[in-house]
């Protein structure tokens, strides 16, 4: 036997171990596998030992034998590799590579192991070519050296493994060859040698792969065994771009996860998963951080501390959280320790940015303002003579108007007074390490954001310490603690007041102080009079989670795990208004101090058992008993009427009138859950879950609920018949069915409640506390439950060029917590009841494509699409009008068979014009310039019972997002588009109606510029100025909010190469912009995403330009 010559591997065994360790670490950090599961999934495939005893068989038979006994499969070109050669082989408990070494000893056959695939090929090479001696270093995406990477000259078996420092050296490489770099868990890369003698490579983690492990709540499972709709957010897309909170990073990345827009500093966006299930109860998903249910704000978690964010979208996936999972679950894992070759790894990220208004609200300038004064007067039947304009102005306006001969306005743009260029600073520092027994991750981060309006400030300071240690080889303890302080202090002047300022207003008194009424009229305050003298708003969150895991030594695969989480959240809110403010003026100053504190405790006890039998039967059982407790206290001290306001809220005792309000309460919950998973040969998986929950806030007859679910996964690509379907790398099918609950009901709401107030009788020194029953007892209010069916496909095609998943679902929510209108004859206006059924169905697709991969240029995209339809199936189930169809609940806006966002209103069919009046067709009570409302029954009047009709829907028709990453050498460019689309009556809004804000007909109050009707502007979008005041019948025109937004651009330069000589592991610089441009063909107003019309107080969205640097060493 000749010495094998195809892989120059010094010590095969060592490499396997090294590779294994690497795999373990990466998988651990990236995918958070528990130790036991690593044993279950990874050790199996790579540590498989085999015994063979075959005589006079062809090599292909040996290969077949190996395939049938293991999960490995072989790929080779039979024209090249001689597999008909007969051999004898006899071995006991040998590793597969060892067997292959024996098998191909003394031949020119080489092999390459890639996951479970083993490729056989022939050593080739054209010796006449020019050769170079090539060397370089391979690092991971963080810049850390990567040992154990296989480097092979493409098309040959010439190759080597990188050493402990990630270095490799290959003699005699053809100058025109390509190098293939591969490593388990990383994307394989092909790089042209092109005559170079040094090539450094940064490996990227593989997103989709058969080995991927997914968090599913109370544990993890290999992707292949996932039966529900589970999606992981691609946090790495924004890795080098600073974000204020993780919501910004995940927006649009997961189909069906909807993150709303924001427009003030530090604002936390609303978040929903799939459609709207509930009407009265919350639609916010449950958030679980490091295994513990999290009641704080997502903004408490700095993006950089988050390793992984998983969304459980369907019933079966979320069912482990039973009673509170109906709106989906978001699982977040924070980072764990990770070092560089045993040394601590430091990460520093800093960014600075500036912000401006994406689309500022425009108010009338001097010319427009004066014209509007005339228009309003004319509309109201008053004299409107342009030559007499100054007499229509208020005293101050007239003075300023007459101050210059050309009537120069005093304010060119009132927003200049209250707006500014925004700034964002962001800094994160972390250090982490991983040693044999212990891992730690310590970080701190700081965000300072100044919004585009004065006093719109936000600060976030946070710190985290995560430690995980194997105390013995059967006992592991982890502690994850974090503190976050968000500071929203600073009172912004309301946009309303600024919107109202006349171009001829006087902001200052002669002494330089702010004039209370800048344009005489007392309807318009100086915006600066509206600002609180003192404003403090601080929100703290301190959380500690302790996890203990005990592997029961005498039963293989059995472990006990406990999670104990404590969190305290406390808020401080102070405000003071002195006598020179709108609020403080009439009461000689007023202020309050508000403190509240919430304590949350969670104790989970879990028994887990997982084991693989006979190589192909994988069993995983989890049993849980969970207890939750929450308690809160609050106190507010209020005072007004100060002789001296100098001390503000620091000395409320100086107020002559003082009140104190205190409050508190608690809630408790229990949960018991059992989950079992069985997987056969990585091909078929079934998971069943049942959870029973008890929650104190429910009424006394309905405290407990049971939530079962079941799911299947069939990995079709592992079937024999798929072997020849080469374009398909992976294909699996999922089906799940289950029931979830919604417990988002506020504690104590089912108890009868007596509220109090104050009334002072004459002859009494002090007030009497009054009392009344404000809430009726509700003994039967219980869980809302959502039952859903989900079907999904996961696929990887064309050598992983295309991968993704498609899900379709159908859910129905029963026993809705519903604020049912009752006749007010009863003294009540509504009562919360469990009634009705809402159905949702939808379709979601996530697609990752590698569009172009040519040498140093690479273009990949991620596309997400989601669509949801909901409808009210039944509400009360009554048919009082006897038409054989259930009656709509018009009073609450619910229509059987229609969506929850249905708009049932008068239809604006046009505008009444002068001709209508002249020819007598105008409706009584209406005037030219009033909206023409469709008189459905033609009785000449508009009444709500007869003339309302279905106009459309406020829900989106569909949403999509498209992220493109282009890489060229060390540059990468990311472009992210985001869209919510309506069309055909979808996604309608009425809140942009500029004539509804109460000032459209006030000629001494400025207004957002809009297109209103006048006798000379008869084609206007909006009605005459006094429509709201004087039209007998009023309707609103609904407008489509459809938009496509260029949400983010970032250009990143990876400068690692330049700084490496100084011992820096990685350096990235990026230039990025957020919220750059919005295309909204129908919308009238500011940002359609935030639903801001052209009304007073419409707050523009913030556009941010950011420069970020991240560095690790």
């Amino acid at each position, binding site marked *: 036997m000749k010495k094998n010559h195809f892989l120059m591997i010094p010590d095969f065994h060592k490499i396997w171990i090294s590779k294994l360790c690497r795999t373990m670490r990466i998988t651990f950090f990236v995918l958070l596998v528990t130790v036991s599961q690593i044993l279950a999934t990874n050790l199996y495939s790579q540590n498989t030992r085999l015994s063979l005893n075959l005589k006079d068989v062809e090599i292909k038979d040996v290969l077949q034998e190996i395939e049938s006994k293991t999960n490995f499969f072989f790929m080779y070109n039979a024209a090249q590799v001689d597999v008909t050669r007969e051999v004898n082989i006899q071995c006991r408990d040998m590793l597969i590579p060892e067997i292959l070494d024996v098998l191909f000893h003394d031949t020119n056959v080489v092999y390459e192991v890639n996951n479970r695939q083993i490729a056989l090929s022939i050593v080739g090479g054209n010796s006449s070519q020019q050769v170079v001696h090539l060397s370089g270093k391979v690092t991971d995406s963080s810049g850390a050296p990567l040992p154990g990477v296989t480097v092979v000259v493409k098309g040959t078996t010439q190759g080597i493994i990188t050493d402990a420092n990630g270095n490799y050296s290959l003699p005699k490489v053809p100058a025109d060859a390509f190098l293939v770099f591969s490593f388990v868990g990383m994307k394989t890369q092909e790089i042209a040698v092109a005559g170079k003698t040094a090539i450094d490579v940064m490996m990227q983690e593989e997103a989709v792969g058969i080995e991927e492990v997914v968090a599913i709540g109370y544990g993890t499972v290999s992707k292949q065994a996932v039966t529900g709709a589970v999606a992981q957010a691609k946090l790495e897309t924004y890795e080098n771009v600073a974000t204020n909170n993780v919501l910004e990073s995940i927006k649009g990345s997961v189909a069906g996860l909807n993150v709303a827009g924001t427009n003030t500093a530090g604002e936390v966006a609303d978040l929903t998963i799939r459609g709207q299930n509930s009407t009265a109860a919350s639609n916010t998903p449950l958030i679980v951080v490091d295994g513990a249910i999290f009641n704080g704000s997502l903004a408490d978690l700095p993006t950089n501390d988050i390793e992984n964010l998983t969304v459980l979208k369907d019933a079966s996936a979320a069912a482990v959280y039973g009673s509170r999972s109906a709106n989906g679950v978001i699982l977040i894992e924070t980072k764990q320790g990770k070092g560089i070759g045993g040394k601590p790894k430091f990460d520093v990220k800093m960014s600075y940015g500036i912000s401006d208004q994406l689309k500022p609200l425009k108010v009338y300038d001097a010319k427009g303002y004066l014209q509007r004064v005339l228009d309003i007067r004319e509309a109201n039947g008053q004299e409107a003579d342009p030559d007499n304009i100054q007499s229509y102005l208020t005293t101050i306006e007239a003075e300023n108007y007459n101050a210059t001969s050309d009537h120069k306005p005093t304010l060119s743009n009132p927003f200049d007074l209250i707006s500014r260029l925004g700034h964002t600073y962001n800094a994160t520092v972390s250090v982490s390490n991983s040693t044999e027994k212990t891992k730690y991750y310590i970080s701190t981060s700081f965000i300072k954001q100044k919004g585009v309006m004065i006093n719109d400030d936000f600060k976030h300071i946070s710190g985290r310490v995560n430690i995980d240690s194997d105390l013995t080889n059967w006992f592991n303890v982890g502690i994850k603690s974090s503190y976050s302080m968000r500071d929203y202090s600073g009172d912004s002047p309301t946009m309303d007041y600024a919107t109202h300022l006349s171009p001829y207003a006087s902001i200052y008194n002669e002494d330089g102080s702010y004039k209370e009424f800048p344009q005489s009229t007392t309807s318009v305050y100086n915006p600066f009079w509206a600002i609180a003298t003192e404003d403090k708003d601080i929100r703290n969150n301190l959380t500690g989670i302790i996890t203990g895991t005990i592997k029961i030594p005498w039963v293989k695969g059995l472990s006990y795990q406990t999670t104990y989480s404590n969190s305290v959240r406390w808020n401080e809110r102070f405000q003071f208004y002195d006598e020179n403010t709108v609020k403080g003026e009439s009461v000689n100053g007023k202020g309050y101090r508000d403190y509240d504190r919430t304590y949350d405790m969670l104790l989970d006890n879990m028994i887990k058992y997982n084991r693989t039998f006979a190589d192909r039967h994988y069993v995983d059982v989890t049993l849980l008993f969970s207890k939750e407790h929450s308690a809160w206290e609050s106190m507010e001290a209020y005072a007004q009427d100060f002789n001296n306001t100098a001390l503000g809220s620091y000395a409320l005792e100086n107020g002559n009138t003082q009140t104190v309000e205190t409050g508190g309460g608690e809630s408790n919950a229990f949960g018991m859950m059992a989950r079992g998973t069985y997987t056969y040969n990585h091909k078929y998986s079934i998971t069943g879950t049942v959870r029973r929950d008890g929650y104190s806030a429910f009424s006394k007859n309905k405290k407990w609920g049971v939530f079962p679910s079941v799911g299947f996964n069939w990995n079709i690509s592992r079937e024999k018949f798929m072997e020849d379907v080469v374009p398909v790398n992976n294909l699996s099918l999922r089906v799940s069915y289950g029931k979830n609950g919604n417990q988002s009901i506020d504690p*104590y709401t089912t108890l009868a409640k007596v509220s109090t107030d104050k009334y002072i009788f004459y002859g009494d020194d002090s007030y009497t506390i009054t009392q009344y029953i404000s809430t009726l007892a509700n003994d039967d209010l219980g869980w809302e439950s959502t039952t859903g069916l989900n079907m999904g496909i996961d696929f990887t095609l064309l050598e992983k060029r295309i991968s993704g998943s498609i899900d379709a679902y159908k859910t129905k929510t029963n026993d809705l917590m519903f604020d049912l209108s009752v006749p007010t004859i009863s003294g009540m206006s509504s009562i919360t009841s469990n009634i009705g059924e809402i159905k949702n169905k939808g379709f979601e697709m996530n697609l990752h494509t590698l569009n172009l991969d040519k040498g140093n240029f690479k273009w990949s995209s991620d596309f997400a699409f989601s669509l949801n339809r909901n409808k009210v199936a039944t509400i009360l189930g009554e048919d009082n009008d006897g038409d054989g169809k259930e009656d709509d609940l018009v009073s609450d806006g619910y229509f059987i068979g229609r969506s929850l966002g249905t708009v049932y209103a008068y239809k604006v069919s046009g505008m009444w014009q002068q001709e209508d009046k002249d020819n007598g067709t105008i409706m009584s009570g209406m005037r030219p310039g009033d909206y023409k409302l469709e008189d459905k029954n033609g009785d000449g009047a508009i009444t709500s019972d007869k003339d309302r009709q279905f106009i459309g829907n406020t829900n989106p028709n569909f949403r999509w997002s498209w992220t493109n990453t282009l890489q060229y050498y060390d540059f990468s460019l990311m472009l992210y588009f985001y869209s919510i689309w309506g069309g055909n009556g979808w996604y309608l809004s009425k809140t942009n109606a500029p004539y509804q804000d109460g000032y459209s007909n006030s000629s001494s109050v400025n207004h957002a510029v809009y297109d209103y009707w006048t006798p000379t502007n008869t084609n206007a979008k909006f009605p005459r100025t006094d429509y709201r005041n004087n039209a007998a019948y009023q309707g609103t025109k609904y407008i489509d909010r459809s938009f496509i937004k260029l949400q983010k651009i970032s250009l990143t330069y990876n400068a690692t190469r330049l700084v490496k000589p100084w011992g820096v592991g990685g350096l990235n610089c990026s230039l990025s912009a957020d919220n750059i441009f919005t295309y909204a063909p129908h919308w009238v107003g500011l940002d359609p995403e935030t639903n801001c019309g052209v009304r007073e107080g419409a707050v523009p969205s913030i556009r941010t330009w950011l420069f970020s640097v991240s560095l690790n060493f």
Partner: protein
Amino acid sequence: MDDTLEEKAKDFLSPDNSYTDKAGFESALANIYLTIRTDMYANSDSPDNFDMLGGDVDFAAKQVSKTTWNEYFYWNTLNADSNFAEKWWTRFYNWIYQANTIIDRADDDGASWDSDDDKNAIIGEAKFLRAWAYHFLANMWGGVPLVLEETTSAKFDYSRATQEEVYQQCKDDLEYAVQWMPTVDELKGGRAPRAAAWHLLSEVDICLEDYDGAITAASKVIDDSNFYLMTERFGQWTDFQFNGYDYRGEYETWGDVYWDLFQEGNMNWLEGNHEAIWNVEFDVNTLGGGNNSDGGNFVLERWWGGPVAWGLSDINGVTNFLKDTLGGRPIGLIAYGGSTSAWTPVNYTDSIIWEYKDDWDRDIRNSKYNIQRTYYWTNPASKFYGEPITIENTSAPSTNYIYNPACFKKAIPAVHHGLFTDSSSGQGHDGGGIFKDWYLMRLPETYLLRAEAYFRKGESEKAAADINIVRSRAQATSVTAGDIDLDLILDERARELYMEEFRLSTLMRMGKLQEYLMKYNSAVISKSYNLDDHINKLPIPNSEIEANKDAVLEQNTGY
């Protein structure tokens, strides 16, 4: 585990531990008084706050220019979507719910009482308040659903009783109330005394056409020695000196007895005002004294206090001054723009009623103290300082001139608290807020109810005698039996009780709303609306009909 899941309230009371003794029930009663104050006077800073008082009926209109009035009620298109109808329907039934809770729980085992008298007095007061709410419903809607028990679970099958049944229920409640309610001398100001129940019973009896009952009931108040008309000047302001609306004349003793009736500190029975039967209480910057911590929304002065003389400029552009003495800060007939039109008196209240029997200069209710019709330049910097504001000396008169409509001084305190400072004059004002204890029931109305009963019974002599008691205090010419008709009674109510009585309810009770609108309402006249008499009753709100899904609530005819 079930023990842990049981909820025990920590920071709020439950009905079981709060409706248990006299103090608890008095708290519950106090809340009805608070609700009435909020609903009727202090809900919002807008003219809507006072829409039961006759605004846009025959007293006042929303005037936006010399010739333009905007209707508040859209009389010619009034339908079941009317905010007004829905608002008051809901409010009245809320009072009824609160009263029912007291009535039911007072008799419950959970309530302990020192004596049956204590309990009956509480029940009596609650029944009075319930009857007060129901009488409005009957007057304004006719027959409405009768709810007489505390609502403990949702109900969707209400149906209408007849109007007579509703009045009869009021009568039953009031007959109980007059036996047990405390008398005025036993009570703090703000609580309804027994006399209030007699007063209301008189009106209800008229509706039931039991005129003798009405006369007896009214007489119980009139003959009560606790109550008599104030005929001499009284109270805290008898020495008040003022130099006239031009602020330039000689200081003179200001006011008359009718003026005294409406000054802060004079309006409560406990303050020596023996006409005051039942008040609503307001106090400045005092907890429990107003609708909100900013000082309350009782803004009668602001929305019904006359024209904005303080907002004008003279022809030289000099701004007029806002004066804190007897000036107020009204915004009626807005000078700028036309959006916030307040109530402006219509011809009926401005002049027609005062011309009766040539009493313009005799009737003290029309004295210069009580109604201002001339306005002056008050800024010393003005060339016209001290001169009347006229069309000639006003800047942009076509826009800003104020036409000298009447300003009812009832709404304006003699001297303000000065919560705000006017930037031009530096004088204090209250931003249009007032802190007087307004009247819910006042003795002259009892006389006018008895007069109505006498007249309807055919005893016009006695009716004239009662009316003349009211008129003679006002130094107005006596009327004779031959003068008496319902219109005279309505006119006399207007003269004596404008801005006090719930005019809309009165006109609807008498079936006179449509007629008076056609005759007097500026918006209706100027827009030539031809109103049908179905508007003498309000529509049942559509939202109620929709929510009452298990039974049909018949709509009133015409809607």
